[in-house]
C-alpha cells in the first residue's frame, strides 16, 4: 500500500487512475435514497437518550442563577435527604482528577476552566453541583434544593462592557481573550483609504446564536473496571471525543470507546465534550455506576456554548470605476467566560478578500471575555467575512452608482486570473465565484426583475434583489493537529457483499450513503450490497468527523483510493483463477467477467469465497482475503465557490419580509449525491434565514438570558423558508474524486444574499443598518425614519457610515486595578529557566518551550517546538523581554516577541509580519 506524498499532500502517483467519471458514474452523482433513513423513519435510530445500561443512574445539575460572583457556601444537606438521591458532587470532589478542558486543538484553555464552578461563577447557568439520583425528575428535585450563597458582583455582558468593565477573570489585566493584527492602521494604508475617490465604512452587528441541534447534548458514561471507559455521547466525531477524553482526563492507560451511532445535529456545538459532559464522566468514575445526563432545552439555550455575537467595521476604498484599492477590518467577538477556544477569528481576515482582486488589507481582530456562556463553533464560524464584504459591496454600488453585479464582475478573481495569491497570501488555483455568478445570471433575469421592481414601487410594493458571491476553504487537513486525513477500510466479504469502516461521522450528513455510493461505483457492485459502518471509535481510524466541510472531500478520496486498491486485488485474483489477463477482467453488478469469454463469468461471491477459504488456489504471494485500506491526505485546502440570488418583498406597513425566490449557484466539484449536496446547502440557507430574520440570544443588563425556550428563540419554520432552486457548476477539484466541501456554504452565503435583498427593497427609505436580526421593528424603524410619501431625491441613499461611528476606535482596555482578587505582592520577575508557552497563531495555538538566560540586560535562549529549536538573543529590562526570531517556514518572516514575566506566568505578544500580532501566554516549566 503506498503512502501519500507527505511533503506535498498530493496524490500525484495515483491521480490518473483515481480520477473518477465525474458525476456520471453508476452511483456517484446519483440521487439514491439514503441508507440511514429506514431506521430513522421507523423510530429505530439509536440516539444517546435511547441508551439504557444496567445499574444506570441519572444526573441533573444545580446551576448559577447569577452572572458573576463568589460562591460563599454550598449547602447540599436538604437535597441529599431526598429519597432516590445517591450523591451530590461539587468541584471540590472533582478537583483531584486535575482535568484540563482542552480546546479543539487539544491544548489547555487560556483561562482555567473546571467542569464545575471553582469558587466563583462567571455566567448564568454555570454548573455548580452535580446530583446523581434514581431518575432525572428526582435528580432535578434535589438540584433545586441545593442552597448556594453568593457574593454577587456586577457582570460584564456585552463586547462594549468588556472593553470598559472589570476583567471577567481574576488576575487578568483586561478582557481581551485573543488579539491579532495592528492596533493602529498602517500609515500607508490609511493614506490609501483617505485618498480614495470612495471610502465605504460599513458596520455589521451579528447577534449571538444558539446552534440548536434538535437533539441536545447528552452522555452515558460507564467505567468498566480500571482499564475501560465507554461513552455514548452526542458528538461530531467519536474518534475526536476518545482522543480528547484520553488527554483531558489524563487516561493514557484506559481503553476508551466512544459510540455515537445516531446524532441529532451538531453544527459546531458538539465538536468535543465540555463542562457538563466532563463532569458526568468524572462522576461515573467516582461513583462507579453508569450515569446518564441528557441536557434539556432550557439548559441547552442558557448553558450550552453559543456562537457568533460579533461586531465588525469594514472600510473599503474604491476608485470611480468601482475597482477595489484597499481595505481595513476591525473585528470583535464575544468569547463569553469560558470559550471552547479563546478566539479572535483570524479566518475572517484571511478569507474576507480571498475571492476578490483586493490589493491591500489590514486588520485588528479581538476576542473579549464576558460574563456570558462560552463561545463555540457554528456552521461557517468565519462567515462574517462574507456577510460584511457582500453587504458593504452593495452599499458601495449604491453609493458609486454602479450595478452591484457589475461591481462584482470588475473585482472577482476569475479562472483566467489564476493561479494567483490573495492579499493575505492565500494561494488560489481554481476558485470559481465569477463563473458561479454568470451561471446564476443565466437562471435569473435581472432586467426583468428590475422592471417588476420599478412597477411594484409605483403600486406600493417593495421588492428587492440580493446577490452575493463567496468562496470557502473546505476539506482542510494538515495545518491543525486535529484536522487530519480520513481512513477508509473496505472488504469484500466471503458472501460477496461489501462492508466498509470509515473514520467519518454523520450528524445528518449521510456519509454512510455517499461513501456506499463510491464503493458500489468503484467496485462494480450494487449499492444495496454495500454497508458502511461508522460512529464508533473502536471502528475505523482517527478523524475529526464533521468539522469544516471536509468529509465528502477527504473521506470521499479515501473511499476511492481504498476501493481502487481492492478492485485491483479482485482483478488480480480473478485473472489467476479464470486464467485470463488482468486487463481483461471487469466487475459489474457483483459479477466478474472476462472480456471475450462470457462462459468464464463468475459471481464476486465465488471469487471472494475462494480468497478467504481456499489459500491453495491463490496466486503466489497473494495475501488471503479481499481487504484494503487507505488514509487519504488531501491537498491542504480545497475551495468551494458560490453565487446566490434572493428576491424578497418587504411589507412597509408591518416590516415583515417575505422571501419570494432563492437561487443557489454553487460549485462543489463532483456531487456524490446531488440530493445530499442540496440538503446541506438548503439546511445552511435556512440557518442563514434564521440569522438574518429570527434568531437571537439576548441578555439583560445583569447577564440573564432572555431566550430560554423556543418561544423566545425563534428557529425558522417551514413557513419561513422558501423553495430553493439549485444550479451546480461542478468543476472538479484537485483532490481525489474532485469533490469540494459543501457543509457550511449555505450558512455563509445565505445571510448576505438576504440582507442585500432587504436593503435593495428598502433603498428608497435609506440604508438598512446591518444589526441582526432584522426584525420587523428594526425594519419599520428604517421605513418610518423618512416621510414615506416624499419623492425620491438625491439624499435617498444614506450610507451606513452615517448610521455608525466613523471608523474603528482605539479602545483602552480596563485594567485589573482595584479588583478584590488582585494581590498586593510585588511582581516576581525571575526570568531565567524554562517556560511552557502557547503562541496563538492563525493556524491555531502552537505549543512550545522557551529557555531564557539573562546577564544584566542581555537575554539569550531558545524556543523549542516539535518543528525544531531556534536560538535567539535579545534584551531584558525588569521582567520585560524582547527578542526577534527569523523563520523560513511556512514563509520568510521575522517574529518579534515582547513578553513580560510575572511570578510563574509569562504573557505578551509576537508580531508576525503580515499576520499581525499574536498572543503569547505560558507558565514556568
Amino acid at each position: 500500500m503506498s503512502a501519500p506524498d507527505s511533503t506535498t499532500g498530493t496524490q500525484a502517483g495515483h491521480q490518473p487512475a483515481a480520477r473518477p467519471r465525474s458525476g456520471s458514474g453508476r452511483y456517484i452523482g446519483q440521487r439514491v435514497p439514503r441508507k440511514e433513513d429506514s431506521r430513522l423513519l421507523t423510530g429505530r435510530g439509536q440516539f444517546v437518550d435511547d441508551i439504557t445500561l444496567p445499574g444506570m443512574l441519572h444526573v441533573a445539575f444545580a446551576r448559577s442563577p447569577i452572572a458573576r460572583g463568589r460562591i460563599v457556601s454550598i449547602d447540599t444537606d436538604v437535597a441529599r435527604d431526598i429519597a432516590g438521591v445517591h450523591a451530590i458532587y461539587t468541584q471540590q470532589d472533582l478537583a483531584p482528577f486535575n482535568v484540563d478542558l482542552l480546546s479543539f486543538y487539544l491544548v489547555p484553555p487560556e483561562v482555567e476552566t473546571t467542569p464545575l464552578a471553582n469558587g466563583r461563577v462567571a455566567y448564568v447557568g454555570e454548573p455548580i453541583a452535580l446530583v446523581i439520583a434514581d431518575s432525572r425528575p428526582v435528580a432535578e428535585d434535589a438540584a433545586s434544593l441545593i442552597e448556594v450563597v453568593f457574593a454577587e458582583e456586577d457582570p460584564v455582558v456585552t463586547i462594549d462592557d468588556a472593553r470598559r468593565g472589570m476583567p471577567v477573570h481574576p488576575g487578568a489585566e483586561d478582557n481581551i481573550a485573543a488579539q491579532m493584527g495592528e492596533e493602529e492602521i498602517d500609515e500607508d494604508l490609511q493614506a490609501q483609504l483617505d485618498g480614495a475617490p470612495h471610502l465605504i465604512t460599513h458596520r455589521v452587528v451579528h447577534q449571538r446564536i444558539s446552534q440548536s441541534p434538535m437533539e441536545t447534548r447528552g452522555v452515558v458514561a460507564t467505567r468498566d473496571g480500571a482499564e475501560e471507559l465507554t461513552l455514548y455521547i452526542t458528538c461530531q466525531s467519536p474518534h475526536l471525543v476518545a482522543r480528547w477524553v484520553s488527554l483531558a482526563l489524563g487516561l493514557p492507560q484506559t481503553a476508551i470507546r466512544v459510540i455515537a451511532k445516531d446524532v441529532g445535529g451538531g453544527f459546531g456545538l458538539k465538536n468535543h465534550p465540555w463542562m457538563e459532559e466532563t463532569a458526568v464522566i468524572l462522576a461515573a468514575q467516582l461513583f462507579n455506576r453508569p450515569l446518564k445526563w441528557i441536557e434539556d432545552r432550557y439548559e441547552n439555550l442558557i448553558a450550552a456554548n453559543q456562537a457568533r455575537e460579533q461586531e465588525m467595521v469594514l472600510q473599503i476604498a474604491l476608485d470611480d470605476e468601482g475597482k477595489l484599492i484597499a481595505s481595513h477590518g476591525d473585528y470583535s467577538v464575544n468569547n463569553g467566560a469560558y470559550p471552547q477556544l479563546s478566539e479572535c477569528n483570524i479566518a475572517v481576515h484571511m478569507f474576507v478578500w480571498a475571492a476578490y482582486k483586493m490589493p491591500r488589507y489590514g486588520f485588528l481582530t479581538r476576542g473579549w471575555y464576558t460574563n456570558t456562556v462560552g463561545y463555540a463553533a457554528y456552521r461557517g464560524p468565519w462567515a462574517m467575512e462574507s456577510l460584511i464584504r457582500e453587504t458593504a459591496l452593495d452599499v458601495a454600488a449604491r453609493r458609486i452608482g454602479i450595478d452591484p453585479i457589475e461591481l462584482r464582475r470588475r473585482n472577482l478573481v476569475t479562472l483566467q486570473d489564476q493561479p494567483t495569491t490573495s492579499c493575505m497570501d492565500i494561494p488560489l488555483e481554481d476558485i470559481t465565484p465569477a463563473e458561479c455568478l454568470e451561471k446564476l445570471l443565466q437562471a435569473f433575469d435581472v432586467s426583468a426583475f428590475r422592471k417588476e421592481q420599478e412597477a411594484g414601487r409605483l403600486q406600493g410594493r417593495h421588492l428587492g434583489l440580493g446577490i452575493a458571491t463567496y468562496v470557502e476553504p473546505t476539506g482542510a487537513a494538515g495545518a491543525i493537529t486535529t484536522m487530519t486525513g480520513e481512513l477508509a477500510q473496505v472488504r469484500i466479504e466471503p458472501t460477496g457483499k461489501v462492508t466498509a469502516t470509515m473514520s467519518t461521522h454523520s450528524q445528518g450528513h449521510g456519509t454512510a450513503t455517499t461513501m456506499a455510493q463510491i464503493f458500489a461505483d468503484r467496485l462494480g457492485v450494487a449499492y444495496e450490497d454495500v454497508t458502511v459502518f461508522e460512529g464508533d471509535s473502536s471502528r475505523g481510524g482517527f478523524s475529526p468527523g464533521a468539522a469544516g466541510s471536509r468529509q465528502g472531500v477527504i473521506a470521499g478520496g479515501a473511499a476511492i483510493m481504498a476501493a481502487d486498491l481492492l478492485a485491483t486485488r479482485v482483478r488480480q485474483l480473478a485473472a489467476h483463477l479464470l486464467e485470463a489477463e488482468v486487463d481483461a477482467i471487469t466487475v459489474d453488478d457483483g459479477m466478474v467477467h472476462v472480456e471475450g469469454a462470457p462462459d468464464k463469468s463468475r459471481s464476486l461471491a465465488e471469487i471472494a469465497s475462494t480468497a478467504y477459504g481456499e489459500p491453495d488456489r491463490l496466486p503466489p504471494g497473494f495475501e488471503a482475503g479481499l481487504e484494503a485500506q487507505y488514509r487519504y491526505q488531501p491537498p491542504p485546502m480545497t475551495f468551494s465557490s458560490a453565487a446566490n440570488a434572493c428576491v424578497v418583498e418587504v411589507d412597509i406597513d408591518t416590516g415583515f419580509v417575505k422571501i419570494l425566490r432563492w437561487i443557489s449557484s454553487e460549485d462543489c466539484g463532483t456531487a456524490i449525491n446531488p440530493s445530499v449536496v442540496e440538503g446541506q446547502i438548503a439546511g445552511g440557507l435556512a440557518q442563514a434565514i434564521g440569522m438574518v430574520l429570527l434568531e437571537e440570544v439576548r441578555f439583560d443588563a445583569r447577564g440573564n438570558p432572555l431566550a430560554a425556550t423556543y418561544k423566545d428563540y425563534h428557529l425558522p419554520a417551514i413557513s419561513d423558508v422558501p423553495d430553493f432552486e439549485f444550479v451546480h457548476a461542478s468543476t472538479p477539484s484537485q483532490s481525489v474524486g474532485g469533490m469540494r466541501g459543501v457543509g457550511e456554504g449555505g450558512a455563509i452565503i445565505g445571510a448576505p444574499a438576504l440582507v442585500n435583498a432587504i436593503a435593495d427593497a428598502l433603498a428608497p427609505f435609506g440604508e438598512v443598518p446591518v444589526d441582526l436580526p432584522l426584525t420587523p421593528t428594526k425594519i419599520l424603524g428604517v421605513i418610518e425614519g423618512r416621510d414615506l410619501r416624499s419623492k425620491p431625491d438625491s439624499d435617498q441613499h444614506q450610507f451606513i457610515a452615517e448610521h455608525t461611528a466613523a471608523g474603528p476606535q482605539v479602545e483602552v482596555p480596563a485594567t485589573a486595578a482595584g479588583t478584590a482578587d488582585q494581590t498586593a505582592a510585588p511582581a516576581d520577575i525571575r526570568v531565567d529557566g524554562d517556560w511552557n508557552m502557547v503562541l496563538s497563531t492563525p493556524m491555531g495555538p502552537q505549543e512550545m518551550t522557551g529557555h531564557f538566560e539573562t546577564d544584566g540586560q542581555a537575554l539569550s535562549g531558545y524556543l523549542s517546538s516539535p518543528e525544531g529549536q531556534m536560538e535567539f538573543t535579545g534584551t531584558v529590562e525588569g521582567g520585560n523581554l524582547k527578542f526577534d526570531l527569523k523563520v523560513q517556514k511556512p514563509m520568510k518572516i521575522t517574529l518579534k516577541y515582547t513578553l513580560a514575566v510575572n511570578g510563574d506566568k509569562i504573557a505578551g505578544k509576537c508580531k508576525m509580519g503580515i499576520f499581525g500580532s499574536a498572543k503569547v501566554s505560558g507558565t514556568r516549566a
Partner: protein
Amino acid sequence: MSKHTIEMTINGRRHTADVESRVSLSDFLREDAGYTGVHIGCDHGVCGACTVMVNGEAVRGCLMLAVQADGARVTTVEGLAAPDGTLHPVQAALRDEHGLQCGFCTPGIVMTMAALSAREKRPTEEQLLNALSGHLCRCTGYQGIRRAARKLASPEPAESTGGDSV
C-alpha cells in the same frame, strides 16, 4: 409522589403501568413503554418532535400527561410501517424526497402527516404545510419535507425529482 395505574393501547398492544401523575406521555412512552422513537426536542411544546397519535389525533407527547392518556389508543412512529417492514406512505415519501438528515425531528413530522393523511378526506397541501409549521427541523431547510407533503397531498403522486433544478 403518588402513583396511578393506567392502561393504554400502544401500537396495537395493551400496556399497563403505575405512573407518577407528573410523568409526561412522551417520557412514559420512551422510558416505561420503550418506544424510543418518540423524541423529546424541547419538552415545552414548540418543536413537535415528540408528536404521537392519541385516538387518531396528532398530539405533542410532552404537553400531555401519561395519566391523561389512560384508556387511549396511542400510535408512535414505531407503529406505522406494515408488519413486513413496508413503509407507511408518509415514511416512503420522506425517504424518496430526502426529507430528513439527522432524523431527530422526523418521528414527529411523520406522525403529524400520518394523522392528517388518515382522515377521510385527503389533506390539501396547505393543510399539511400549516400543520408542519408547528415542527422544527434544523437540518434540512424543509425542502424534502415540503416535497413529501406535496406528494402526499396531490391526487396523483408526482414524479420524484429530488430537487428543483432550473
